């Protein structure tokens, strides 16, 4: 029996319906973006005209980092819940009794975390850019709208989200407690953001070549992570709690 996008779509739709009616998920998806839009705007709008160039870079770095925390934390919370949450509710076993392949299940779950988060992250970044363009000091505006900054944000948003999702699912397949899985997952999702932060803070001089190189590396890691997670998905262990 071959891979079926119909089954992927079924899981995707189910996940979205489930998130929509899950109060915790709705709060997470609603509150975090508000925090991550308010904090950077506050950072930039309180800048005085006399600020030094180094401090301006630092403020912008922090603001852009907030933007990247959104596609890092939300998918890690969602994906950490995705397997262990179903185990806790007893819904995983009935799904695994169907002809679904583990790859179909994992891709369905990953897409359900990835696409909404990507949309929210870009919308929030758009609002941030709009606010900066409309109300920030011209020096701030020109620094934020630097090509490299924009490129880093646009390029790394889906890549760090992908990393967070696969790490979250991997942890979720091995944990037996939702809360522990989510905490561990958030921690494990941070390393790629740290690298981007170094660029945002100009610790590593951001350049197009460096950004593209790191993005390619992260893309490769995301691709490999997906294969690793698929291999880690052990039906027997998930159902019995015992390694097969």
């Amino acid at each position, binding site marked *: *029996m071959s891979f*079926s996008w*119909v*089954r992927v*779509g*079924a*899981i995707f*739709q*189910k996940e979205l*319906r*489930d998130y929509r*009616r*899950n109060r915790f998920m709705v709060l997470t998806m609603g509150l975090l973006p508000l925090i991550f839009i308010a904090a950077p705007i506050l950072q930039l709008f309180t800048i005085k005209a006399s600020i030094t160039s180094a401090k301006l870079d630092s403020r912008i770095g922090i603001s852009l980092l907030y933007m990247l925390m959104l596609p890092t934390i939300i998918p890690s919370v969602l994906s950490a819940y995705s397997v262990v949450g179903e185990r806790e*509710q*007893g*819904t*995983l*076993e*009935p*799904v*695994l*009794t*169907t*002809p*679904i*392949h583990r790859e179909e299940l994992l891709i369905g779950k990953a897409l359900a975390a990835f696409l909404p988060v990507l949309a929210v992250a870009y919308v929030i970044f758009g609002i941030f850019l709009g606010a900066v363009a409309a109300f920030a000091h011209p020096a701030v505006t020109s620094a934020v709208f630097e090509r490299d900054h924009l490129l880093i944000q646009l390029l790394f948003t889906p890549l760090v989200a992908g990393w967070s999702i696969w790490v979250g699912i991997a942890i979720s397949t091995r944990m037996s407690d939702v809360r522990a899985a989510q905490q561990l997952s958030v921690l494990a999702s941070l390393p790629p953001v740290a690298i981007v932060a170094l660029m945002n803070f100009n610790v590593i001089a951001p350049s197009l070549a460096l950004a593209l190189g790191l993005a390619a590396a992260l893309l490769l890691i995301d691709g490999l992570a997906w294969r690793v997670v698929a291999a880690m998905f052990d*039906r*027997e262990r998930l*159902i*019995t709690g*015992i390694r*097969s």
Partner: protein
Amino acid sequence: MVSTPASLTDVEVSSSINLVGRAPSGPDGPRTVERVGEPGGSCTDMSRSDGAIIVEHLTKRFGDRVAFDDVSFDVGYGEVFGFLGPNGAGKTTMVRTLGTLIAPTSGAATVAGIELRPENGPAIRSRISIMPEFPGLYLRLTVAENLELFARLYRLSDPQYRIERVLRAVNLIDRTNDLCRSLSKGLRQRAALARALLSDPAVLFLDEPTSGLDPVATREVHELITALEDRGVTIFLTTHRLEEAERLCHRVAILSTTLRLVGRPLELRQQLLTRNLDVRTRTDLDDPGKMFGGLVDVEGWEQVLPGLYRLTVVDPDATAPVVARTLVGAGVDILSIAESRRSLEDVYLELIDEDVEVKRR
């Protein structure tokens, strides 16, 4: 008996179905009791190759712990096969193994005509359905949304028609758009059964389907199982409720890590247990030992209550008149003489007790 898997799309529930006293039948006609591991005892006719389930020397271990060991049996198409055992006997593990959710340690099996191998997992799962002990419904989704999900996972054609049919079959059509969390435990069990029926499975595994249900909900599930049986669906039913197996199953197997016994419930009682006559008298007998000990057909006796004696006999029908004549001849006032019918529970407890004693040794 229906010999091929039937479509479930026509399943309708009939509350007038007689659950008691159905003639046990199987695809191969009447079967005899098979006591596993005894001389001359064979648990399965392995020459048959067309069974819905054929299990040969299947073993599952989790490290040092043995879930079940060297189990062999077969289930014919259209048969309702009961799998009995105490908690921890390996019943659920057997269902999960045959459902390709976990891999056996050794042995072989064929499920719905497909060999049990890891690479055949999706193919086997597309031809069977498993209803786990706990319904496992998505509580934040409606009944219909739960069924839609599974219809798509099975890639079923005309899903809306199928969903409507199975919901009608389990009398849940009026709750179609209700969130599953608003359903009672019994209704959730029905929804889970509807989900299991959705794909017209060749073999339906029901793992403790009435666990935790009240008597009314239990009866409803029993009626649904009987209706499915009437449609020729092969059902593999695990339970520790002995009266359930006795009422619903053509054959039962008793598992306690190893398979202890396979047979028809009635035959299990008749062939494996000594038979009894309960004799009630107005007053206690002066010397029951002398009275009953002198009768050739009486193998033993015990006083159960004042004025109630239980005789162990070979043939109750032949012995009852002899006992009556003897007692009347001795001037005893007889209130009643009746065969004491022993349930499958007696067989079950006897076997489990044997296991406990063997383990003690």
